[in-house]
């Protein structure tokens, strides 16, 4: 495979976040969801964000994609710092898979429409061929192409959502608890699919999860979050060996056994 110059240049740091603060509301209603988060993810790496619900891990992903508009600090993707507005080109580099596949697909749009529109928006020409290739890539056959979401199972819907995120051929994929809404047996299938896709497409993952075993399986490094702050960043080997230095991480590890 010929690697483009773009990938060569950004080979080191895919995502850098420095002193990121994210908040909702203003004045007395202001809620600080993320406080002073700093971490970076190398090209090709898989990075996990773990913590309890409400610890701000999903909010970091939403700030990166621009869905949470109030943030300060520095976010840079593939070497380029982001401002408040995201250009369409940005979404060719960064894509996101949402937590709940029952809520992330338009109820009146067929699989074909969902993928076709995505490809159209990113300026692809050969949409028909691309749609069928995407369906094959995520392990859905052509027979799913013209179904509506209500004719699909949760796992199949999540595969469609993954196909949509892959359509613009991004380098960085943000995964917001991609398996937490699914059955245990389906979770493994989706995780394996994500691992295979990462290997095949040289993707960088940032994966949010509250399930330490999922992160241990999928990620190289992880950050533990509590109350909007990153309390510890560690290698996954340390996680497997149950060696956390911060008391909160130790507590989290002990609770997950």
């Amino acid at each position, binding site marked *: 495979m010929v690697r483009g110059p773009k990938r060569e240049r950004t080979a080191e740091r895919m995502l850098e976040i420095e002193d990121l603060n994210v908040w909702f509301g203003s004045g007395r209603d202001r809620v600080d969801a993320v406080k002073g988060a700093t971490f970076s993810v190398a090209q090709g790496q898989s990075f996990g964000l773990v913590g309890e619900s409400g610890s701000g891990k999903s909010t970091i992903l939403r700030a990166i994609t621009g869905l949470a508009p109030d943030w300060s600090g520095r976010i840079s993707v593939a070497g380029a710092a982001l401002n408040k507005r995201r250009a369409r080109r940005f979404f060719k580099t960064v894509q996101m898979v949402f937590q709940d596949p029952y809520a*992330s697909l338009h109820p009146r749009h067929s699989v074909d429409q969902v993928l076709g529109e995505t490809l159209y928006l990113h300026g692809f020409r050969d949409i028909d061929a691309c749609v069928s290739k995407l369906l094959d890539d995520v392990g859905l056959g052509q027979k799913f192409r013209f179904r509506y979401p209500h004719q699909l199972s949760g796992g199949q819907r999540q595969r469609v959502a993954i196909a949509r995120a892959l359509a613009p051929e991004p380098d960085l994929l943000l995964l917001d608890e991609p398996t937490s809404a699914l059955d245990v047996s389906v979770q493994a299938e989706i995780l394996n699919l994500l691992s295979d896709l990462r290997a095949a497409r040289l993707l960088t993952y940032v994966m949010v999860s509250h399930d330490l075993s999922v992160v241990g399986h999928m990620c190289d490094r992880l950050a533990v979050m509590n109350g909007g702050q990153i309390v510890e960043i560690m290698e996954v080997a340390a996680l497997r060996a149950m060696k956390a230095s911060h008391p909160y991480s130790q507590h989290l590890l002990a609770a997950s056994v």
Partner: protein
Amino acid sequence: MADASGQTGGLRAWLLTDTPTSRRHARISALYQGWLSFRSNTMAMVGLGILVLLVLIAFAAPLLAPHDPFAQDLGNRLAPLGAPGHVLGTDSLGRDILSRLIYGARITLYIVALVALIAPIAGLLVGTVSGYVGGWVDMVLMRITDIFLAFPRLVLALAFVAALGAGIENAVLAISLTAWPPYARIARAETLTIRKSDYISAIRLQGAGPLRIITTHIWPLCVSSLIVRVTLDMAGIILAAAGLGFLGLGAQPPSPEWGAMISEGRRFILDHWWVATMPGLAIFTVSLAFNLLGDGLRDVLDPKASE
């Protein structure tokens, strides 16, 4: 025979499949399943039947009407029900009431069709833009909506007709102008629940602009509840048109508009009750049909009810 039934069975299976093979197939299949669930509602089918009959009558009016609706026969005025040649009697100028009702169906349909085109579309535009854009746009649009909502409908329509001049087109315009605010409210409420959903976030992450999101992602979800509301409101719209006709501000004589016919018959209501009652019954039947249809459509289209 067996062959034919096998073929219809094949068609049924083709229509009800869970694995459509093309875009067209998927769409037809979804329509057919909606039709099946609509068909199981008897009252809604009755409503639909009445409305189909109304459309047929309106189209075939010259063939069906026994007399010219404008032909006067002063020697035979106020003939009772079942009078020879005049099944529903004649009015104060000796015109055949049945023929006038049949021709009046055209006017009723005309009013209904125009209002149904103008009011919900205006409401949908205002409501979805207001709900999706938010901020001061929302404020301005919703305050305008409030102003229109604060007036009693018929009074506002009267004011418009008085300003624009009496006539059926102006009546339609006046009714539409007073009918759109509830649609705007419904569309805005739906938009507010939709705009924060993950599938809208997902399409924003593909770089889609507000125009595309509103027209291709939000409208399809708002339209069904609007259609239901429109059919339920149709009765009110027919009555408002009849009311304007009754007050002499809608259709002008000698036009056989049903409201205007009631207005003319009012003078004789005690001695010759059928002159006002027959058009009243026609209005009642059509209004009822729209209500029944609306109820049935709500069961089919409203995603909240079906899930």
